[in-house]
């Protein structure tokens, strides 16, 4: 039985990693038939597979189309498994706000980052693209977000990010939220210069950096 369980979990992971929706759904159904704990099937199977896909993306074996197909397989598996999770008081999810700053409509990168955060269990509020600077601040306030992610692909709209951080300071909520920035023309030193807490070069690194930021300074994030 244990061997079989391992095998099913393994197929869940490789179904996601190999962009194979059909295999993932079949393995998810088998997991249910074999009474595998759905939470375990999700964490050790589906999410582990997505994690492997992320690593392949980082090493440039996968690109955007492949990563999107992996996420489709992941969601197909989740659709099968999540209804069977016994509702237990789960740990509150980290709430985050994300968007592309005003003046820019390029949102492929932002959508990938959003996807990776969602598949990593974050509660993501997406403001979309070409987002007015005040809207970031208002949303962070409204939902008491612990993390704010802003992106731009255009070097011409980078300065808007600095203005959002200034506004957070003016509103007196800067130390309640971790701010991360990303996008083609940005780098770590720019993030540092404008007073952001973190920078990530891609969607996979973004989740890693966010986790580090959120665990390193939890004392002033908790209400």
């Amino acid at each position, binding site marked *: 039985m244990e061997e079989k369980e391992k095998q099913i979990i393994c197929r869940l992971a490789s179904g996601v990693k190999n962009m194979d929706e059909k295999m993932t759904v079949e393995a998810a159904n088998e997991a249910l038939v074999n009474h595998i704990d759905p939470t375990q099937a999700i964490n050790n199977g589906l999410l582990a597979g997505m994690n492997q896909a992320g690593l392949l993306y980082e090493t440039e074996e996968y690109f955007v189309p492949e990563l999107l197909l992996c996420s489709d397989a992941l969601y197909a598996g989740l659709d099968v498994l999540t209804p069977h999770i016994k509702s237990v008081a789960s740990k509150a999810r980290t709430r985050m706000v994300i968007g592309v700053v005003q003046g820019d409509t390029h949102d492929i990168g932002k959508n990938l980052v959003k996807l990776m955060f969602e598949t990593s269990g974050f509660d993501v509020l997406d403001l979309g693209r070409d987002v007015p600077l005040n809207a970031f601040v208002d949303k962070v306030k409204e939902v008491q977000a612990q993390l704010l992610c802003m992106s731009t692909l255009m*070097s011409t709209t980078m300065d808007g990010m600095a203005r959002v951080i200034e506004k957070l300071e003016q509103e007196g909520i800067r130390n309640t939220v971790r701010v991360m920035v990303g996008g*083609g023309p940005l780098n770590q030193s720019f993030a540092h210069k404008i007073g952001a807490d973190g920078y990530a070069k891609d969607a996979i690194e973004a989740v890693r950096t966010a986790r580090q930021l959120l665990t390193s300074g939890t004392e002033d994030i908790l209400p």
Partner: protein
Amino acid sequence: MKSGNRVLNALQGRPVDRPPFICAGGMTSMMTVEAMQQLSADWPRCHHDAKEMSRLAEGVRELTGIENLGVPFCMTVEAEAMGARVNMGTRESEPRVAAYPISRISKWETLSRLSDKQGRIGPVSDAIHITSNRRLPYPVIANLTGPVSLATSLIEPMVLYKAMGKEPALVHEFMQFLCENLIFFGRLMLQAGADVLTVSDPSASGNILGPKGFEAFALPYINQILDALKDHCSPTMVHICGDLKPVFSKLQDLHTRAISIDSATSIAPLLSVLRKDQVIVGNVSTHLLMKGTPRQVERASLTSLKRGVRILSPACGISPHTPLANMQAMAESVRLPLSPISG
């Protein structure tokens, strides 16, 4: 050597007395706010007006020292004419797609076919006609949005990228349709008198599509356009954004000699994989162009040239807030002697 010949020769990899400085138009628009003020331009109205587009291209060329004339000043002309809702922007921002006309690839047949009656197709080709008839000693560049970028202006990019894996045959039908429409518009602009054809395909970026996606969905369609229009113009140029490293090995298969690159792509490794007859156009950082001093821009321009760029150009679309002094610094840098790179 006249600027016109210099640009045409350099784009074809032929010897020139010095590198030319170009700003093709379209995605790499020539226009800035400061130039508009000096020329009393009326943005966004001018995007519909052939005479104004032509006057402004010539005016900004004179103000900056750019050695070509290029229209339009945005990359939304084709998408708008095919049914996308376009926000025409303000005095300080270029037009942008505000809403995609289709939500599924299978709906591509509902898109309008390009004709000179549609949107700004007519005014743009008229602007080329007017400019070309002025017989200025600078080549007129026709700017075409690349097939992948047009696709991502008509449908949410994530839907397109996913479909490339799930329904490749359908995506090919869609791309073929776009390609035919782009060939129509390209031919119209070249027949109106443009000397050079540029295809700008930022969404075909190597680090988005990867080598397989680029080879399947970008390369054959860009080539199809270049092949169909090669009898109507001498030089062609292809601009692709982002870091091209993942698709380096495919670039020699592009049916063009001039490849325009972003500042994210390194010049030396690219040079080593291009065909002997291919040249690099680029790649001065647009952030530096907006924020830097003329001295810094000059240094960056010289660095690009020393590393092997043969035609100096901004790396990507410039900010409308780029100071004229920085564009002038680029124009001056191509006239300076090149000392060897130190370090």
